[in-house]
């Protein structure tokens, strides 16, 4: 099963909006909670109350500071901070699957979800080596590889109300920065969103063809970006009606007449 399916019927995945993510870690912890209680072994924590607390998480939120280059319009652009959630990208050419010696790692034909069959996993760690994104973490207590399941135990679950059949990170995200759907269907909401907002692959040069897409942050600090254009547009808005309070009161009188 280690070979990848030639095609999958659907390409289910996440679209993560970097313009909207406020970095609250809600997705991180809800994922921890759901996947501790559900699919496979619990996500364990070592030394949870001690000096080196460390545990298995399937989703973590990084943060990056980006310093834009100076331009004539913006000689001193402010640095920007971007929160960056990262979990398995369910790649079409998932290198983590093909390296697996036991067939525990596989990519589902029906939806493209990459999973680990824990009862076949020998815990060699090679799949984690093969993944450029750090999407797989070996559980120290269980000795098997854990990874995002795209909540395969939720998205088809008849025991959940229809609207809850989404990955738990998507359900919980307060800012709505995470979207779930079929990225193989150009007509799906997520595909349209990717199209509209210029969704991107992470590390495209690795050739993994990630299914998950990231929407880039929108341009920031634009009010001052192009001084000539902006100020000309805005200047009439601040054209004074009066320079002094006295003149202002006269203006008030006239303006009130018009109401």
């Amino acid at each position: 099963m280690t070979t990848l399916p030639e095609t999958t019927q659907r390409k289910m995945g996440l679209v993560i909006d970097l313009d909207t993510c406020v970095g609250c870690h809600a997705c991180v912890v809800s994922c921890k909670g759901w996947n501790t209680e559900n699919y496979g072994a619990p996500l364990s924590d070592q030394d949870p109350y001690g000096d080196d607390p460390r545990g298995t998480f399937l989703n973590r939120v990084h943060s990056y500071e980006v310093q834009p280059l100076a331009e004539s319009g913006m000689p001193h652009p402010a640095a920007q901070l971007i929160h960056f959630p990262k979990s398995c990208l369910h790649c079409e050419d998932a290198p983590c699957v093909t390296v697996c010696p036991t067939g525990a790692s596989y990519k589902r034909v029906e939806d493209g979800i990459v999973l680990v069959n824990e009862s076949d996993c020998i815990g060699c760690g090679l799949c984690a080596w093969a993944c450029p994104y750090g999407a797989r973490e070996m559980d120290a207590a269980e000795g098997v590889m854990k990874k995002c399941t795209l909540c395969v135990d939720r998205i088809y679950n008849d025991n959940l109300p229809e609207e809850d059949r989404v990955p738990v990170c998507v359900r919980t995200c307060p800012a709505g920065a995470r979207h779930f759907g079929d990225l193989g269907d150009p007509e799906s909401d997520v595909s349209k969103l990717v199209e509209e907002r210029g969704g991107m692959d992470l590390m495209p040069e690795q050739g993994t063809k990630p299914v998950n897409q990231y929407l880039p942050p929108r341009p920031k600090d634009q009010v001052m970006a192009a001084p000539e254009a902006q100020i000309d547009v805005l200047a009439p808005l601040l054209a004074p009606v009066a320079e002094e309070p006295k003149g202002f009161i006269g203006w008030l009188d006239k303006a009130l007449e018009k109401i």
Partner: protein
Amino acid sequence: MLDQPKLDTSPKVSDEVRKTTCYMCACRCGINVHMKEGKVAYIEGNRDHPVNKGVLCAKGSAGIMQHNAPSRLRAPLKRVGPRGSGEFEEISWDEALEIATGWLEPLRQEAPEKLAFFTGRDQSQSFTSFWAQNFGTPNYAAHGGFCSVNMAAAGIYTMGGAFWEFGQPDWENTKLFMIFGVAEDHDSNPIKMGIGRLKERGAKVIGVNPIRSGYNAVADEWVGITPGTDGLFILALVHELLRAGKIDLRYLAEYTNAPVLVNCDTSSPDHGLLMRDADGKLLVIDRATGQPAPFDRKGVKPDLSTSYEKDGVTHRPVMHLLAERYMGEDYAPEAVAERCGVSARRIRAIAAELARVAFEEEIVLDREWTDFRGETHKTMVGRPVSFHAMRGISAHSNGFQTCRALHLLQILLGSVEVPGGFRFKPPYPKPVSIHPTPHSKVTPHRPLDGPHLGFVRGPEDLALKEDGSPARIDKAFTWENPMSSHGLMHMVISNAHAGDPYKIDTLFMYMANMSWNSSMNTRGVIDMLTDKDEAGEYVIPRIIYSDAYSSEMVAYSDLILPDTTYLERHDCISLLDRPICEADAAADAIRWPVVEPDRDVKGFQTALILLANKMGLPGFTNEDGSAKWADYADYMVNHERKPGVGPLAGWRMGEDGPQHGRGAPNASQLDNYIENGGFFVSHIAEEHAYMKPWNMGYQEWAVGMGLYDSPQPFIFDVYVETMRKFQLAAEGHGERQPPEHLRERIRATLDPLPIWYPPFEDGHVDPVEYPVHALTQRPMAMYHSWGSQNAWLRQIHGRNPLYLPTKIWEANGFADGDWAKVTSTHGEITVPVAHMAALNENTVWTWNAIGKRKGAWALEKDAPEATKGFLLNHLIHELLPPKGDGLRWANSDPVTGQAAWFDLRVKIEKTAAPEEVHPTFAPIRSPVGTGPDELRWKVGK
């Protein structure tokens, strides 16, 4: 080998879902607690809940780790070692209640004020204050005084409500959203949801904050302002908008006191007071007649420009004073740019953007409504700019005036309670006139003469004794901070220790970590708590404390009443208190024990009822001497604040069965709540959903809901007359006179129109020696939570560096892994540093309350929270540096007494990396041991 494993994609999720209210922070979201085999298996947001609509933050999802934390207290504790040692013995509840009443009852009989009862992160203040009032002590408050009273009080005094639980932006319609000093603050999930909605629509967000993290990181425009100068920046925006005439004149004339006439005779004892008719109605000039008329008379068209002469005294509309103040050069962008750290060009660009969106992208909703003057309008006109602000602007000694300045800006733009603007959540807006005034009259063995906290209308309402000395231990409602509506919890221990204004006997606190992160000057507070007098007795003789967890404060208490976790308790999030309403709905909620405690603990409110019953407190006792309520659940259902109005508004008993709003107690009320998902919600009709202060339809709905007893329409106070009354006193008018040393400060700071003055610390500390502003904010995954004991959350934030801007980083040659010595005029800490470019160049900051005391929270002594985590609290004092006048000057806002945490100034020096952060504190003994070495948390099979 090409077969995929067979997978069960429809596993059973849980045996049962129990719906209650989260308490991992102060947001009060609805949660679905999934149970397996009677245990908590998984927690998610409740989709039907008005606050969070299904989403849940990191804290909420980590609730299972809080509920099962090894730091949970297990039984009542009696101190057996010295204070601070952490040496306790477990005792029975009978013994604990016996000890407590043994201490409290004599006080009640002789001197109730010798009990100081302060509750920290209390969500039951209408109940705890009721208890304190019936005990008879004037010394009660919750934590608002060190949190955000500037915001709350400025909002209520200006427009009958502030941000957070008072109101919200019109998320669905606003086109430009501007936030000031907002980190992960109050209302966290709703703000995230709202920002998400704006982003979906491509609406713009402007973030004003020295630090570009969190919401400011996703803001389209970031204004990295210098701390403490927000007021100046806002007033410069006001300056530009006034000059350009980009203000909503109709709105100002009809819905605010801008047209109200002011006595402008500087020699009059009423100078600066508003003109009223014989019925006490505010007077405006009616443009139709040119004559004075009551502001609310049918058909009156208030004038903003005409003055009025009476008995030789000129009365001018507030609008004149406004124009004179803010059109002056003092508030020109060029004049403020350097102090604010924002260029004049940028200030203008933002003012223009506000003007453009407010006036060129006007929203009109076809909703007919009738205003309080009886005029019916076919439409609702909206200015789609909205604002939100929080502690970043309020936790300064100029915070009250800064918050007022922001409300002034909102009001000038006509963007409060209109489509696309800022909207109130019931029971707000509530004008000051229907809030209580503070009460502090003590009669032994009798209840206090009224509610402790309230809104003063003038010097006559101050909480002063006959001799003019403060009636309250925290000196709330005194000349030092006359409008301190939330009390001053941060001054209680300091004042009690100093015996200023008097000594107390028992300090009784709930969920307030005063010997650690909830105090300024942590070391000093620890010393005050352990200090003994000449007779060898503790200066603060007795301390009772209630907490669910082994916090740092436990070690400094004599008697511990262990509280339950939030999943084991009853609570009501009441309309009488701080409810969970949305702009479109009234709502309240309960907590109920989704699991029973497995320890000998009781919900704190139930413990209070047991104490009250043991003492037979009036209010808790029937005429026959029997107890009214057995526990808090009983109180929630059966207490009536006034006939028909109780803690919970849903499913009250009417003549024809259950009804909402007003009604008699209903024995099955809690079951009704549980059936409904733990909350009650009643929606407001569309045509009543905006213009609430003036919309008679809304006013009548509110009366039906029990929010008011009669319609209470009002106009916004851009000019706060109450403040002018304090100024008049300072100028020598009136019977109650401030002490000499405070006259000048009152005159200068209690200005009835918003002003800006530099934070007090700037005036006391040499800005050349201490050139750097130092701030804290709580991380999103821990805001208002007790996260360090949480095995999942502490992996995310287990230590905190001090973030330094590029200028300071480079000037000192810092590199990754370096440490710095940080010095304020009060103290010194040595801490790890890290670089952040997206930061005001003169500001440093860190995550607050990550640092923990060794031995607390059931963590091991070498936990990173204790060795690498730190508090800035050690650098901040509750008092300003002595001036040499022998007086204790609080490090607080002079209007409300809010703790001025963010005035802090420091200097930074690179230093060799020590083993641990400095200062270090000796470990305290944990009354609950430490946690396990590994967690494999799975309840189901």
